[in-house]
């Protein structure tokens, strides 16, 4: 059952956002408390658990030898998958993935891939025949809004701690042996996804679930820093309402500040 806000709640939130108020006393563009912990999974090559307020996501990195894609014989593969477990929210149902379950990993895929944080060309075992495939698996544990930003922080964090397993003589990976070789990561690139939500004429960030349900539009940017320049790697707009060009320009001004601010917050974890 789709869960939607009541008209009363939407009107009240509109009124509140206009006055710059939120139920949890945050400012409209303020993030909740972010926590990151590592090595939550024994079997994964790298893993992280991210909490933004009550939102909680586990991201795991798995590496397996595989064949390269025909158009990138000299590069490793990257696959991002996500599963919106019913345990995370009453909004999620088991069964074939819906819109949100397809959108989430695709957004993370683009934000990570286009930032070039993973040096995929260093993941070749034998050119044209065998390369490492990097799997990023996203598992939300609790959805209290802003899952995408949380998942992206988790993916970046887990990648930074990921190790490459050693190979057996027959070419399969030896997962039992303790891996020491680190995944080739470009230093200084921290891809993050930053989402803006719109309700009425107000733009808010990091909504809780009830705020997210009430919002009429969302736009998500994948950001990273490359040679001290801010790069927008991906961008996706969702839901019915529209953004005006003035609003987009305002976001462009906010993005670098928010990116630095988030990075500052996450520094102690990365």
């Amino acid at each position, binding site marked *: 059952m789709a869960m939607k806000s009541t008209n*009363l709640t939407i009107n009240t939130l509109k009124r509140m956002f206009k006055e710059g108020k939120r139920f949890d006393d945050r400012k409209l563009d303020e993030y909740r408390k972010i926590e990151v912990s590592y090595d939550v999974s024994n079997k994964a090559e790298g893993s992280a658990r991210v909490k933004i307020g009550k939102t909680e996501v586990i991201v795991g990195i798995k590496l397996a030898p595989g064949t390269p894609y025909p158009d990138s014989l000299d590069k490793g593969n990257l696959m991002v998958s996500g599963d919106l477990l019913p345990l995370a929210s009453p909004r999620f149902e088991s069964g074939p993935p819906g819109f949100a379950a397809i959108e989430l990993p695709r957004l993370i895929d683009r934000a990570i891939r286009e930032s070039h944080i993973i040096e995929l060309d260093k993941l070749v075992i034998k050119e044209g025949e065998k390369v490492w495939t990097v799997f990023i698996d996203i598992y939300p544990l609790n959805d209290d809004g802003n899952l995408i930003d949380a998942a992206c922080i988790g993916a970046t964090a887990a990648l930074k701690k990921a190790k490459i397993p050693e190979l057996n003589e027959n070419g399969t990976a030896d997962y039992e042996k303790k891996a020491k070789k680190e995944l080739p990561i470009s230093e200084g690139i921290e891809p993050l996804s930053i989402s803006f939500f719109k309700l009425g004429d107000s733009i808010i960030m990091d909504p809780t679930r009830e705020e997210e349900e009430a919002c009429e539009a969302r736009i998500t940017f994948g950001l990273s820093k490359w040679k001290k320049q801010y790069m927008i790697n991906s961008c996706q707009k969702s839901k019915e309402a529209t953004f005006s060009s003035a609003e987009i320009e305002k976001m462009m001004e906010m993005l670098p500040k928010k990116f630095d601010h988030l990075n500052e917050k996450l520094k102690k974890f990365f």
Partner: protein
Amino acid sequence: MKNKINKVQEAEDTEEIEDTEEIEEAEENEAKTYVSEEVKKRKVVVPGEVIVTGEDYLPSDGTKRVGKDILANRFGLAEEAGRVIRVLPITGAFMPRRGNTVLGRVTDITFHGWLVDIDSATSGFLPIEESPRFISKNEMDQFLAIGDVVAAKIMGVKAKGIDLTLKSKGLGKLENGFTFKVSPNRVPRVIGKEGSMINMIKEKTGCSISVGQNGWIWISGENIDNEIKARKAIDFITEKVHMEGLTDKVEEMLNGN
């Protein structure tokens, strides 16, 4: 109208969890011995736990009989009322019962009435005949539109769905304010003994508050600040259900700012 609704809600509240002390004592007992004794007070049980042994007892809600034992089916507080044993759940979904007053959101308008989402397994149906005054089939959306909040009473629970009615005091469409949800099992705590908790919040914040048995809460006040304050108090209650002297703490909180 608002006040009337509130009164109806308070009258509804029959399943109050009593003192927090009892719960804590029960927890202690459980830690000491797993072998079940006769329960005179409520105690916390987990599914599969033996509550009592003996042919004299009758299993009720949330329990089942296995041989001579009565086991808990749910996580909650086991209660003995005469020979009847039942478990009051601490978590879980709303179980609709006849006579419950609930708040819900209109999700669809059909030929014969409105579909109302009341957060139960099946959706509620409000037939057009059960509206308080005559409504022509052409102007149904003027009375209740999709997304509107309505306070209704459960007329009957059938396998196909839940029938609702507005033909009672204080029921109808809610205007202004906002709604939010708490766990339905925390509703008795939010209301308090004979409405003591909810009345205090109403008094201190000057807001009208209506609590549905399905855990939906509606707050409407003079200004947003008071509404936010009332909501914070209720969120505080639902988080600290087992705290001792909760009413005093909430009062302190409301006086504080």
